[in-house]
């Protein structure tokens, strides 16, 4: 049996689906990006600037190293959180 809530959910999910589908059709076609300023620069200069053969690692640790610090922090936070959640309470 469908309630009023279910109808509303289905309706709004449909709206979101339609809009997202349209945006997916309007964004650049699969496999041929239309702009490549940032990435092309990285592909051209990685080996000279960072001395790494792996483009992704050079982005992760050099060009966008600060993001990686944030990511490491997220993991640290999660571990701290899990330890805190399962901590022993004082009796």
């Amino acid at each position, binding site marked *: 049996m469908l309630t009023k809530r279910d109808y509303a959910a289905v309706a709004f999910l449909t709206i979101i689906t339609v809009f997202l589908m349209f945006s*997916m059709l309007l964004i650049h076609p*699969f496999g041929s990006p239309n702009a490549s300023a940032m990435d092309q620069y990285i*592909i051209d200069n990685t080996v000279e600037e960072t001395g790494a053969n792996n483009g992704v690692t050079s982005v992760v640790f050099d060009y966008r190293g600060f993001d990686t610090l944030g990511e490491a922090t997220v*993991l640290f936070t999660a571990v701290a959180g899990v330890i805190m959640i399962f901590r022993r309470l004082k009796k």
Partner: protein
Amino acid sequence: MIANIPYLAVVGLIIIGLSAVIFKKNLIKIIIGITIIQSGVNLFLITLGYREGSTAPIWTSSPGGVMAFPVPQALTLTSIVIGVAVTALMLSLVIHLYRHHGTLDVRKMGGDDQ
């Protein structure tokens, strides 16, 4: 050219995940839904960086030619680790909730305003 099928799969994953979060009553199912949304977004990022006929952006024994974009791959790495961190935290909270309630029903978590 393939008519943006991977892009549409992204929308499919996001909507499947969202409907799981909205319609399912089981807390672990809700978490699985969130994991699916995460996978969808990750797939979207990688798909954005793909170029037709490219190789991976790694020069060690690379055949040359065009390369896929490295930045979205780096972003996806970050997003994957964030995803597992969030999932771990949610699951540990769910274990606690089960200890208190004895059930995983989401409707047990009533508000205080009723």
